[in-house]
């Protein structure tokens, strides 16, 4: 993995797509055959690789999640993601190849609007032409997420305070059992124990959220409505992480 990372740090002349439509990046991960570049892309908002807010300290997790479309160190089992391949690849006969990224194992990798790996392990993804010529390949490690971290203002949090009327952005990052941050979009559920104290809404929303359960997003915006305490729970399947939010009265000058 260290060798791969060294390779990805090498400057590349190719411009490749980023995980966000609005970002332009010039890096990815060079394939194992050295013919082109594989680029990781997010397929929806539930992927910590493509956070919109500054809740997560990106430098703390980028070694795991990668930057500028690098192939991450590991993907969460069950998470959605996509990989693209860039490179003007021609055969020795001069034929220019049109290449799709396909998994070597199709039994454990679903491909419907992005890939989903369904069990732990290492998976080769091939840049393959319809005629069956493989120009390049890369490997992804899939790990079961066993823990969730919630981030606020670039810190992992389990409790924090807000003033009534205040708000904050929170983000969740899945981890494995040794703390490696995992890429891929997972379906999360966010819930406040007390909607009259703290309400949860989509990241980037305006005004006061209507409350209730926020689903499928790794980032949320919370608004403190009134003095009191609320327990925020973010969960993914049987894994959950709770954060206590204490709302203090608004200080008036």
């Amino acid at each position, binding site marked *: 993995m260290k060798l791969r990372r060294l390779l990805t740090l090498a400057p590349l002349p190719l411009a490749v797509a980023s995980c966000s439509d609005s970002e332009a990046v010039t890096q990815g991960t060079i394939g194992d*055959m050295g013919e082109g570049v594989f680029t990781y892309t997010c397929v929806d908002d539930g992927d910590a690789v493509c956070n919109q807010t500054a809740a997560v300290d990106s430098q703390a997790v980028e070694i795991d999640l990668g930057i500028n479309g690098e192939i991450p160190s590991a993907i969460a089992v069950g998470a959605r993601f996509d990989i693209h391949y860039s490179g003007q690849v021609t055969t020795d006969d001069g034929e220019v*190849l049109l290449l799709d990224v396909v998994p070597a194992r199709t039994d454990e990798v679903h491909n419907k609007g992005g890939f989903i790996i369904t069990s732990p*392990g*290492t998976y*080769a993804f*091939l840049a393959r032409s319809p005629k069956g010529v493989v120009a390049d390949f890369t490997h992804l490690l899939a790990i079961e997420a066993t823990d969730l971290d919630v981030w606020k203002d670039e810190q992992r949090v389990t409790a924090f305070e807000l003033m009534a009327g205040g708000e904050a952005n929170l983000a969740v990052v899945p981890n494995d059992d040794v703390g490696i941050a995992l890429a891929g979009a997972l379906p999360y559920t966010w819930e406040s124990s007390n909607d009259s104290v703290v309400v949860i809404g989509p990241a980037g929303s305006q005004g006061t959220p209507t409350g209730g359960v926020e689903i499928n997003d790794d980032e949320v915006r919370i608004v403190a409505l009134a003095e009191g305490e609320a327990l925020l729970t973010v969960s993914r399947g049987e894994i959950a992480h709770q954060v206590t939010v204490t709302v203090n009265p608004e200080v008036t000058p």
Partner: protein
Amino acid sequence: MTRSIAIALAASTLLVTGCTDDYTIEFRYISSAPPEVLVDADQIRLPEGIAVGVEAIAVEDDRLVGSVIDFVPVRPGIIGIDRGTHERTYVFYGISVGATSVDYYFDAELIGTIPAEVVPQQPQP
């Protein structure tokens, strides 16, 4: 007559054996390969889900032969073998756990068979 038939049979047997023995394939990895990977003329072993790039060169009587080799897995659901972009390069990958063999052809002629197996991945440390 009987003796000449016997001599002819013995000679043809030697000829067939010689042809089979004289041809072999030399493999060289052209990508990184985990320790569990083995691709050589006698055996192919890959963990499921793992790919490796190889260069395969036909050798006859210790001389390199320019023949293009076609590798055909007998059970294509076990192991995948695709051509690479450059001459004599191939990508071998494990699809699912199991045993099979890989026939190889020079110029559309079946030359030999290599036993192959795809093994489970070792658990992550």
